[in-house]
């Protein structure tokens, strides 16, 4: 299973691509031409096969591009996974009030396009009894619109990427543009994705989203602290999704949704750390996952606190 491979290098292919890129760039010459079609980006190899120096080159190029585009200094992090870490997420359904602050906090942190609108978290409203027996997604309403929440007799279920241990999207991707990192986060290389949207067909949770147009983010709303595999501004024509705020979690911080939640419904931590809150709730609460029969083995655990 091509799940958590270590970085594999293919020297001859990298050399060829490097030479090809340098050669064509030299021929292209004109600085203005690069804006319409970035040759260096076109010939960029697969992220997992780049050397540390090549990655640095990519980072510098991207930081230059984003800083120029948004008129403020943007950093692109490429920090790898921490050893001994496998992230897990918990969500207390009995606490969620459907306020959607997580949705908007996520958008602010992760630089989703505002126009066209992309939201990584989808909050479904159910009749309370409909989440007791079995969750039938046909009964859920993602477009509830009340003056105040929680509405009487309703239950709320937020859904985003489940960061499956057996991810269908990773199997489906024809270009190997999406894979699972050693710390459990399923990531996408936006510079490698060909935009075929097969992963979107494969995902049972509707967690993946496509940039149908050039993303529209007002420069003043852009979060300039980005990660290459996470919240850096995406180009048009590629797929994106929740990465458990890889730019935060790999530095020991909570994802934005965890911090935004006003009722403490969201829990996050290291599954390999026996003292973590995620391990606590897995040992003391009755957790379940969505669509368990598909055996995707999600690391997103729902429970009733």
């Amino acid at each position, binding site marked *: 299973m091509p799940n958590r491979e270590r970085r594999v290098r293919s020297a001859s*292919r990298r050399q060829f691509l490097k030479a090809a890129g340098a050669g064509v760039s030299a021929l292209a010459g004109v600085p203005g031409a690069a804006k319409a079609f970035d040759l260096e980006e076109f010939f960029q190899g*697969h992220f997992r096969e780049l050397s540390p120096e090549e990655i640095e080159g990519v980072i510098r190029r991207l930081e230059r591009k984003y800083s120029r585009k948004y008129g403020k200094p943007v950093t692109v992090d490429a920090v790898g996974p921490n050893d001994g870490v496998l992230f897990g997420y918990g969500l207390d359904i009995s606490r969620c009030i459907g306020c959607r602050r997580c949705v908007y906090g996520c958008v602010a942190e992760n630089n989703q396009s505002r126009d066209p609108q992309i939201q990584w978290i989808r909050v479904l409203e159910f009749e309370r009894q409909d989440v007791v027996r079995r969750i039938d997604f046909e009964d859920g309403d993602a477009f509830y619109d009340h003056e105040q929440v929680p509405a009487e007799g309703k239950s709320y279920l937020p859904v985003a990427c489940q960061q499956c241990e057996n991810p269908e999207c990773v199997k489906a991707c024809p*270009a190997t543009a999406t894979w699972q990192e050693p710390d459990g986060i399923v990531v996408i290389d936006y510079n490698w994705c*060909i935009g*075929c*949207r097969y992963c979107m067909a*494969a995902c049972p949770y509707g967690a993946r989203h496509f940039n149908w*147009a050039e993303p529209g983010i007002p420069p003043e709303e852009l979060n300039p602290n980005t990660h290459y595999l996470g919240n850096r501004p995406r180009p*048009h*024509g590629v797929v994106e999704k929740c990465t458990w705020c890889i730019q935060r979690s790999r530095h020991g911080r909570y994802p934005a949704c965890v911090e935004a939640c006003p009722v403490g419904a969201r829990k996050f931590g290291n599954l390999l750390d026996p003292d973590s809150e995620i391990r606590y709730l897995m040992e003391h609460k009755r957790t379940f996952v969505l669509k368990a029969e598909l055996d995707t083995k999600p690391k997103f655990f729902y429970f009733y606190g």
Partner: protein
Amino acid sequence: MKSITAFAFYSLKEMVRGGRAYYAWLVCLGVLIWIGVAGFQEQLLHGHIVSNMRDPVPWGVFIGTYAFLVGVAAAAMALAVPGYVYHWKPIKDIVVLGEIIAISAVIMAILFVMADLGRPERFWHLIPFLGKPNIPYSMIAMNVLILNGYLVLNVVIVFYFLYCSYADRPYNKPFFMTLMLLSIPAAISIHTTTAFIFNVLPARPYWNSAILVPRFIATALCAGPALMVLAFQALRKAANINIREEALQKIAEMMVIVLFVNLLLFFAEVVTEFRSATAHTVHMQYYFTGLEGHVDLVGWSWFGASCNVLAFLLLLIAKTRRNPITMNLACVLVFIGVFIEKGVGLVLPGFTPGALGGFYEYFPSRQELMICVGIFGVGTLVFTLLSKAAIPLTFSEPLEWDDQLRAEGSPKVAYRPDAVEP
């Protein structure tokens, strides 16, 4: 080598040589292609937002038509089997034309995928050694590989056959027969992997069934020959060549059998789904009866199914099968019916209702339809040019007249058995 260059020049000359009717036809195709280019330009400028695909239904008419065309391409094999395996003369003559249809269909299929990709310039990411194709897990990666292999195989077969015809040399029987026989499993594999693209996804229960593979093969073997019957009759008139009536009749007879299998598999699916009546039945319900007021596809589903049933009856009854008007009507109905089944009836109900519930009702946008028109124009142009060059070589000046034609008093040119005899 000199001869190959001469052959290439001859073919190109033949493609541009023609009367007013021929050029009028080329101009019409040019207009269609121009429409497609205009639509594609809009898509390049604004992105796929000009389509009506969105996150809940990320695939639409492009992928549906892709699946349909791979089926048509696979059906060229339908001619190869009786022609070369059973050494049946009337069909042997037109196998090359069938292969040319396959080439045109594969080119169109590839163009539809390119039109669908968000980043088509990154297609090289799928090329082995250059890119990083996810083989063997990704069915799209497998399909792309096998489909291109099938294209190469067909091009080699057609090129070799026509070149030998041009250079008046007998073709190398073992080599040619191997290629022809290889094209049979190749054709089955291209369409099997296309079916696998859909049916290996546990997230989409409407597709996640083994029966999708034989259904794809069955519908392919219906639509491909139907197109061939229609195209060959058009060629017969336009190029004044002898495509024997018994060849067309044999194809029509074969279509009865595959149509029956298609209808049987369809019946099996419907009964299984509605009798089991699980939560997954919603997709088929949406397609045939509508759900919660969402009824956009209901007319299409019944129309498509009716086309298939009516076509089956028309071809089953000998009288209507032998009558050219009803036979051609049946072929048109089959083509439409299978297109609806594979285009509308496969992709859209698979995504509706969505993975987390919810309905997004899709219909192709203007730009998507323009691109479809353009790609069909390209495919028809490829077919026109290739058959224009091929026909004089496969249906060349006779050394002897066909008895049947002479009896009919027909001025049509017969085939030349010596040049193409294995």
